[in-house]
């Protein structure tokens, strides 16, 4: 077993931050496993720095950390989660409340957004069901319900509520959902210029943007908006097909295209309200 002193020297601030959380998280892991987790954290964070793998809106750095945390989590078979309040084991993943004492639990680091929102990990998603789940969860988790509870409960409800917000926002829109699914498989869209971009495609984007910029009537803007939406619907179908078949590179390429058109759609909305 490696001594803690050595780890204090080599641990990044990120890893040190996780240590108290791991103990507070009532995981009954042996200390050896926890040190191994810290070591893995350190390796993951240093390689993350050198690769400059940071991502893009809306998948922010916090989502990057969330995914890193997911990829690092040991198999749940070896872990027993216990309620911090009554000590009973908390079986389900993710666990929001203890089924025995009903106290709110800290967020489950091993749960994906799909698990949190009780959705199958597929690109095709019932957004109405997602919304219902979101409202149901927030009804019980929102910090407003914990104003008279203990500090610890307030803290956990804050973390849980924020995480549910994040999960909902990420899964709601096809673009962020698709990008998140790629992230779960370890694929990121690199920052910076795409050296292999199709010049014809870039030219097409330029022309659409220029046309939108020069549009002087709502009709013109709506026409561009309709064309863009059609393009986005088409891309959504292609992304669904690619992800379903496990063709990640193809899905990534379509998601990149979708990002460009999603930006245009945002500008259409802006322009539309400007011309009102």
């Amino acid at each position, binding site marked *: 077993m490696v001594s803690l002193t050595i780890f204090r020297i080599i641990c990044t601030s990120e890893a040190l931050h996780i240590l108290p959380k791991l103990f507070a998280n009532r995981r009954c892991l042996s200390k050896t496993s926890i040190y191994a987790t810290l070591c893995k954290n350190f390796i993951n964070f240093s390689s993350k720095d050198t690769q400059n793998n940071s*991502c*893009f*809106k809306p998948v922010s750095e916090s989502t990057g950390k969330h995914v890193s945390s997911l990829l690092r989590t040991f198999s749940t078979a070896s872990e027993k989660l216990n309620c911090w309040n009554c000590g009973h084991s908390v079986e389900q993943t993710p666990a929001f409340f203890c089924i025995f004492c009903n106290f709110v639990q800290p967020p489950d680091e091993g749960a994906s957004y799909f698990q949190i929102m009780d959705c199958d990990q597929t690109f095709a998603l019932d957004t109405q069901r997602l919304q219902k789940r979101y409202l149901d969860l927030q009804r019980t988790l929102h910090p407003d319900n914990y104003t008279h509870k203990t500090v610890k409960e307030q803290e956990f409800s804050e973390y849980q509520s924020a995480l549910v917000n994040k999960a909902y926002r990420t899964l709601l829109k096809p673009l962020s959902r698709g990008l998140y699914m790629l992230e779960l498989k370890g694929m990121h*869209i*690199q*920052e*910076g*210029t*795409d050296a292999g*971009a199709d*010049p014809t495609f*870039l*030219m097409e*984007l*330029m022309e659409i*943007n*220029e046309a939108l*910029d020069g549009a002087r009537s709502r009709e013109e803007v709506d026409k561009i908006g309709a064309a863009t939406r059609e393009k986005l619907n088409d891309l959504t179908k292609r992304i669904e097909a690619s992800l379903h078949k496990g063709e990640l590179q193809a899905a990534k390429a379509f998601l*990149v295209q979708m*990002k*460009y058109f*999603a*930006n245009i759609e945002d*500008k259409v909305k802006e322009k539309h309200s400007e011309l009102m």
Partner: protein
Amino acid sequence: MSNNTTSSFGRGRCYFKVVDHYENPRNVGSLDKTSKNVGTGLVGAPACGDVMKLQIEVDDQGKIVDARFKTFGCGSAIASSSLVTEWVKGKSIAEAMTIKNTDIAKELCLPPVKLHCSMLAEDAIKAALQDYRVKQQDIEIEAVKASN
């Protein structure tokens, strides 16, 4: 860079630079991309969905006499490309090739999260210079063929 971040006046100046380029962008527009004296660079950043077009017009002595840009993206991307068009005017091709994203970022005091915008502008000018160079080579090849 340090004197721009320590004093609040310095920070104000930096902030105004990006805003200034965004609100009063220099050299927005297009040049005739079919012209033999014009080099066009067209780049995209997939992570943020920005597109940037940068064009240069070069005289017969190899000096850049005009530059135009069109950027659809965030303020930092617009400011970076606007700045590059300002910088390249009057420079030779070789001098323009030395423009680095770090110079752009320093001048505009771009925060770390926006450094990729300056990178995009550097890639755009390099693409424009490359396009011009390829055009000139093609012209030379045509001239050699014609004389044979």
